[in-house]
Every structure is written in C-alpha cells, then in structure tokens.
C-alpha cells in the first residue's frame, strides 16, 4: 500500500542511538551557556569553557564524519566555528562593547558562509549594513549610555537556567528534525541488505534474506521519495524497484536474474543516497532550463546559480576561453529579479526605510520639556 504523499515527507523514527549522540553536544552547550551567563556571584569559566569546547568539537565531529578535505569544506567548518564561538561570546560577555564586537564577528563569518553559497551581493550588503552601519550605531549608543562601574544590567541574568533550557530544547528539536529528514542511516541499512542478498547463491536464500512479503520494497519506496533534487535518478530507481516487486510474489525470475536486478537496484540506490541534500545539483537536474543541453558540456555551479528566479535563462555568459564570467555570476540576475518579480516589495522596502527614518528622528529627537 502506498502512503499519501504528505506522510511520505515525515520520516519514521531512525535508530535511536545516533539521535541520542546528537543530543550530547546540545546538552553540553546548555551546560556551557548556563555556567557562563553573567551572575553576581561570578561564573565558573573553567567548566563552562571546557563544556563549550567539547560541545563544539563533538558537533564538528558529528557533522564532519562525511566530509573531505576540499577547500570549501575546510572554509565551511572554520567559518561556522568562528560564528558559533562569537555567538556564544555575544551572549556571555558582560561588557556590552565586547558583545557588540563579537556580534560584528558573527556577521563577518556569516558573510563568509554567504560567499561560499554563491551569494556575493548579499555578502557585500550584509558587511556594509550590519558590520558597517548597525554595529557602529550600537557602539555609539553604548558610548552615549555609558555606565560607570558594575551595573545590574550587565552583571545579572534573567532566569539563566530556564532561558538556556528554552533555547537549547528548541535547538535539540530542530536538530532532531534535521537528522530525521537528512539522515541516510535507514536507507543505508536497506541498501546493505539488498547488496548482501545479491551475493546469495540460491533464490531461497535471497528470499529468506529480504523476507517473502513486500515490507522491504515498501521501505525502499518511502526512502526514495526523499531525493527531490534528482528526479531522474529517483524514477530509474522506482522503475527497477517496481520490476523487482512484480516478480517477487510469486517468484518468477531465476536466481541469476534476481541477483543482477538487486545489484542494479543497489547501484541506483547509492546514486540517490549521494544526492540527499547535496548543494550541488546533479547533471541530470530538472532545475536546468530546457534550452541548455547538459549532456554536451559539463556545467559549472555558476550556470545553476545565475538562473532567474522563475524564468529560465538563456545561454550562460562565457569569456573567450569558454569559462563562466564569474564563479557565481548572479548579482546581475538578483538585480533583475528584484526589479521585475519583486518590484512592489522593493518599493515597499524603500517606503519602510523612509518611515523608519522619520520615526527614529521623531522618537529620539530632543524636545523642550514643555512640549512632551
């Protein structure tokens, strides 16, 4: 029986052990933030820093188990470690000036992550607006509202345990959901069973291995639905899965044919598994515009990232050597999108900025006491 498609989006619980392992760095981070939040008796910097370091190392190990030594991977881990460390410093440092400076560090490393994701315009805009304007204005206000000595505002926290519990329960829930959605563990286990069954000598043993019912195939059907990004691969996998399923009950193939079908199923399944959540769309992606023949020449990521938001672009711009003009030549396309698809939103954004300027001046302007 095929489930309705909305149910297919919600994965069944994965094996619990890796889920528990995922919650260990979250709990360590909770302990670290709780110990490091400011309070008048003084914090415990040694234990807090130790558990923060262990949380970050463990989280990096859990994330990076499938990584490799490519430049993009190394940059990603460095920048995100800086961002998370500076974020922790922002909420634990007592001096608001230092907190504002570590916020600038968060913004800068997030801008590095933007650049890794082919968003150069957003990187520049965020650096100029956040790190340039907003942080400087914050520092200005901190200087204006200079407080001498220790103050209640900086030395105390409001309910430190409850607030860190709230934040980290939220984080744990989000991480569990992400793990359940993007984990390949169950798919890997199913594929390993298919692979082991393909090695068996007789038909009887293959059927013993996979069970005579259709549970195995139903589970594979469910898993294959996750690979949204590679519909061609999913279709090939579904086709060979259906062919195998039709000849399973009653068994109408001999052992050799069954073995080769299982081997083919395994290879197509591995191809699908490798495109789970991949940021680089595969060559056979359906997101390509119809005009581009992707079988002829391999396309770089720039070809994908420079697409118009909802209209297909024509041929990619290339220089004399046939390379794409920029690694991610999408600034012009972002501008075109903004001034065609989102024109009304851009106008509204400009109006909002104007109203905010008027409001800020009206609120903060010094007036004579009698006029209040």
């Amino acid at each position, binding site marked *: 029986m095929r489930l309705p498609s909305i149910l297919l989006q919600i994965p069944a619980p994965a094996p619990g052990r890796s889920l528990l392992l995922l919650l260990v760095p979250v709990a360590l981070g909770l302990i670290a933030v709780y110990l490091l939040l400011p309070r008048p008796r003084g914090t415990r910097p040694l234990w807090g820093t130790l558990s923060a370091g262990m949380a970050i190392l463990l989280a990096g190990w859990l994330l990076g188990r499938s990584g490799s030594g490519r430049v993009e991977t190394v940059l990603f881990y460095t920048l995100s470690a800086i961002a998370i460390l500076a974020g922790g410093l922002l909420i634990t440092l007592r001096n608001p000036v230092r907190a504002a400076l570590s*916020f600038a560090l968060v913004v800068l490393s997030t801008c590095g992550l933007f650049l890794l994701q082919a968003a150069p315009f957003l990187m520049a805009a965020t650096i100029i607006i956040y790190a340039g304007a907003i942080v400087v204005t914050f520092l200005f206000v901190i200087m204006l509202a200079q407080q001498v000595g220790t103050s209640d505002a900086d030395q105390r926290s409001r309910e430190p345990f409850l607030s*860190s519990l709230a934040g980290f329960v939220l*984080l744990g829930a989000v991480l569990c959901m992400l793990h359940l959605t993007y984990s390949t563990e169950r798919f890997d286990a199913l594929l390993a069973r298919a692979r082991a069954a393909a090695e068996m000598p007789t038909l009887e043993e293959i059927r013993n291995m996979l069970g005579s019912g259709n549970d195995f195939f139903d589970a594979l059907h469910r898993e294959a639905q996750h690979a949204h990004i590679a519909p061609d691969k999913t279709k090939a996998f579904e086709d060979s899965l259906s062919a195998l399923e039709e000849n399973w009950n009653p068994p109408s193939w001999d052992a050799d044919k069954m073995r080769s079908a299982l081997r083919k199923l395994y290879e197509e399944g591995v191809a699908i598994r490798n495109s789970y*959540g991949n940021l680089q769309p595969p060559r056979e992606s359906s*997101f390509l515009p119809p005009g581009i023949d992707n079988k002829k020449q391999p396309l770089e990521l720039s070809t994908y990232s420079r697409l118009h938001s909802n209209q297909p672009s024509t041929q990619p711009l290339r220089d004399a050597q046939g390379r794409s003009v920029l690694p991610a030549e999408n600034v012009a396309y972002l501008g075109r999108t903004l001034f065609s698809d989102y024109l009304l939103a851009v106008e509204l954004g400009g109006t909002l900025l104007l109203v905010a300027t008027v409001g*800020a001046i009206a*609120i903060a302007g010094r007036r004579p006491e009698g006029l209040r």
Partner: protein
Amino acid sequence: MNELPMLHNYLVVGAILFALGTVGFLARRNLIVMFLSAEMMLQGVSLNLVAFARYRSNLQGQAFTLFIITVAACEAGIALALILMLYRRRRSLDVTLWQELREPTVEPTFDEEPLPPPPVEEPLPRLTPAGLEPVHGQETSHV
C-alpha cells in the same frame, strides 16, 4: 560519498545561531545585548534562506534575505531611538527597571543577591615635580 558541504550542515549552523540568539534574548538584561541577540537570530534565518536558495538553484531565497536585511536596518534604527529614550528616563539600560509594564497578575521580581563591590582602581601614578615652577603673572610684552 558526497564531497561538498551539504544543505544539512548550513541548516545546522543556522539553527545554532538562532538558538544562541534565543538564549541571549531571554537571559540578558541589557537592552542593547538583547537587541544584538535578536539580530543574531535574524542572521541564522538568513543563512537558512541562502542555503535553500543554492539548494534550489534560484534566487528567491537571496531576494528574501535582502528584504530581511532591509527590515533589520529599519528595526535597528527604531530600536536604538527607543533605547535612547528609555535610557533618558531611567538612566540605565536594565530592562527590569520597566517592570510596571508587566501583566497585572504577575508578581514583580527582585534581585536578592547583592552585586559584588566594584573593583578598586589603582590610582594613577603622579610625577614628582621637577625643577622650579615659574612665576605665574602678567607677562610684559614689548611691542
């Protein structure tokens, strides 16, 4: 095996930034640090949107992030003006000084522990006067 960083990793980093911002907003009492935490939550959301823009290979996520930046700039301007106003009224950035805005059924909170005494600052070194101090007086000018 996959070689590039996956969508999943960027979503995890965005979620961590968002959760840290939540904790900071709930726990800190300084108005400015609370506001910085809210901005950090927005950074986490922007990271998610940009990651989805690349995953989906279109520019909708990036356009959305640009509007987030616009709204954040407006929000920062207004909020700083408000913070300045509040500071002028109470001469402090402590948010618990505004407890009269609470619900009528909620009890006010008090701080029980006293603050630690402020650190005693070392007095600045003073130079011993050297030489003779000149006579202060009307200087005669010969023009």
